[in-house]
């Protein structure tokens, strides 16, 4: 009887297309919006992926990585003296302005690394040598900088080319790949001292102290030790990541905005597919009653309805996820908006589509269960 169920479904083209469209829309909206949300959330923590460190020491009031409340220069030595700290290095981060060849300005994300150890350096350098950063007035830029800072030039910036940061010369000695920052400003790396020369002077300039635990101690243990000894706040990498994510969830409209769209996708999916499927069952009431009269049990008819609901569900899900992936492909080629689709997301979307289909099928099954075969004799 299953092929009969499918023929009944596919034969009603208008309803079939409506059902598939509704579920496609729901799957697309839920997966695409979640992917963009995850992408934005990942941008908030891009500093941590571009400057890896086991322990991040910050001002006691700091809650997330993009919020900088500078420390005193002496704090670096206080951290270094804490038992369990293998080494600690200063790190500067700040938004500065770069002047382009055509006279316009672009914001850049300046990162100042400890010149001695280069702790916090980018991991994927595709051109040039990191050590050259120790030369005066030199910077290492990411590929996004090449795109954004080349405006007004005949050919894109490359190693050896020069541009200006706050009226100071910056010579490119290398190019790296870095994750995009939350503000969209491209990353420019320099030594810590060089970065302070580019940055407008303030009373305190040390953004973070990054540290590593000695062998035999965990980052958590050492972070606790740093907090006890210095009064500063010390996060492990994982803690800082989640603290940042939760800060954005609590303090910005991003999750509400995306959450609304995602819930809307779910509601529209349930409403459209539930209503359309119910109307499909209503229109086929006489045929279903005839099947019941001929001896089809409620259980058989329920299985037929489940097959119909899940067929449109799986087709809608496939098209929806396909379209979401296509969106992702196009976004990633363009560089924005951010898009991350972890494998859990298609699985979760699949679960929700199954939920929608089950709901739609149950409405029909309820109708079929109550259906009296005798109605087939009524005019």
């Amino acid at each position, binding site marked *: *009887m299953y*092929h*009969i169920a499918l*023929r*009944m479904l*596919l*034969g*009603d083209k208008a309803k079939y297309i409506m059902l598939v469209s509704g579920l496609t829309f729901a799957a697309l909206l839920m997966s695409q919006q979640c992917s963009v949300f995850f992408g934005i959330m990942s941008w908030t923590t891009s500093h941590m992926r571009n400057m890896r460190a086991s322990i991040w020491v910050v001002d006691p009031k700091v809650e997330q990585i993009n919020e900088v409340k500078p420390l005193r220069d002496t704090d670096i030595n206080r951290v270094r003296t804490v038992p369990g700290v293998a080494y600690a290095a200063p790190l500067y981060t700040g938004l500065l302005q770069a002047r382009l060849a055509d006279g316009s300005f672009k914001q850049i994300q300046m990162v100042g690394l400890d010149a001695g150890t280069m702790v916090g350096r980018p991991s994927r350098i595709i051109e040039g040598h990191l050590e050259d950063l120790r030369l005066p007035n030199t910077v290492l830029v990411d590929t996004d900088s090449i795109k954004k800072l080349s405006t007004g030039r005949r050919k894109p910036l490359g190693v050896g080319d020069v541009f200006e940061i706050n009226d100071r010369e910056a010579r490119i000695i290398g190019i790296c790949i870095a994750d995009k920052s939350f503000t969209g400003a491209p990353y420019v790396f320099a030594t810590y001292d060089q970065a302070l020369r580019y940055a407008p002077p303030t009373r305190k300039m040390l953004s973070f102290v990054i540290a590593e635990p000695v062998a035999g101690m965990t980052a958590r243990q050492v972070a606790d030790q740093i907090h006890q000894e210095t009064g500063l706040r010390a996060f492990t990498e994982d803690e800082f990541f989640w603290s940042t994510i939760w800060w954005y969830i609590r303090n910005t409209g991003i999750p509400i905005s995306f959450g609304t769209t995602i819930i809307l996708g779910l509601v529209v999916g349930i409403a459209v597919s539930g209503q359309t499927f119910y109307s499909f069952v209503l229109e086929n009431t*006489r*045929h279903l009653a*005839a*099947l*019941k*009269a*001929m*001896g*089809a*049990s409620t259980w*058989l008819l329920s299985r037929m309805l489940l097959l119909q609901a899940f067929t449109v569900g799986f087709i809608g899900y496939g098209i929806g996820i396909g379209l979401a992936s296509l969106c992702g492909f196009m976004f990633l080629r363009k560089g924005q908006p951010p898009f991350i689709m972890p494998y859990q997301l298609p699985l979760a979307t699949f679960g929700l589509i199954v939920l929608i289909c089950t709901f739609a099928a149950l409405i029909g099954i309820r109708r079929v269960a109550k259906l*009296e*075969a*005798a109605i*087939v*004799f*009524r*005019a």
Partner: protein
Amino acid sequence: MPEESTSQLAVRVKGVTKAFGSGDTRTVALKGVDFDVRLGELMMVVGQSGCGKTTLLSVVAGTLLFDEGEIEVFGSKLHSMKQGAITEFRKRNIGFIFQQFNLIPTLTVKENVSVPMLIGGMRRREAEKAAAEALARVGLGDKLNARPSMLSGGQQQRVAIARALVHEPRLIICDEPTSALDSETGHKIMDLLHDVARSPERCVIIVTHDNRVFHYADRIAEMEDGRVRRVTAGNHDSNAAVPTQA
């Protein structure tokens, strides 16, 4: 009517009552109906609209629960069977022909006819083979892959007859099988049903308003106000209407 087929009862209805609604809106459709049908018989149930013909057909077919009384079909007591058993009984023993044919428009004629076999658990290929044979028997062997909408009313009713017969049920229930057809087509359909009823293992119950076809009946049960008023023998030699108004 053949002598040997009159001896055995196929359907026995005794004191059956059925009411719809409750309180002020309660309507009693069957008021203690007594009625029987013999094997090899074509029984017509006639009467004015609202007299309870369709309700009687529904309870005999096991598609509607009744309030009181007893119904026995081929020895099975419907009044003491559970719903699941009644469904199973219908699947094996009853074929249906409906006024509006009730063919599924998105299926081919062959697929429509194969439905009772598929419900019975037969494999698709075998069911469609049996359907093709049943369609050939009603003269539609060349329309296997046509859609119902491509057929005339008479052809659609013949498809419905093939569907009712394909699994070789012993009781054929027909609800106004000729009312949607012209006179000539109606007679062809009745000839077919008359032949079906000739089998000594089978019987046909037809509810109809159509006095053009009364003469096909072996017996006619006249209903009035929820009761069977009288049962008369049919007159195969005449196509004159019995005195029951449509």
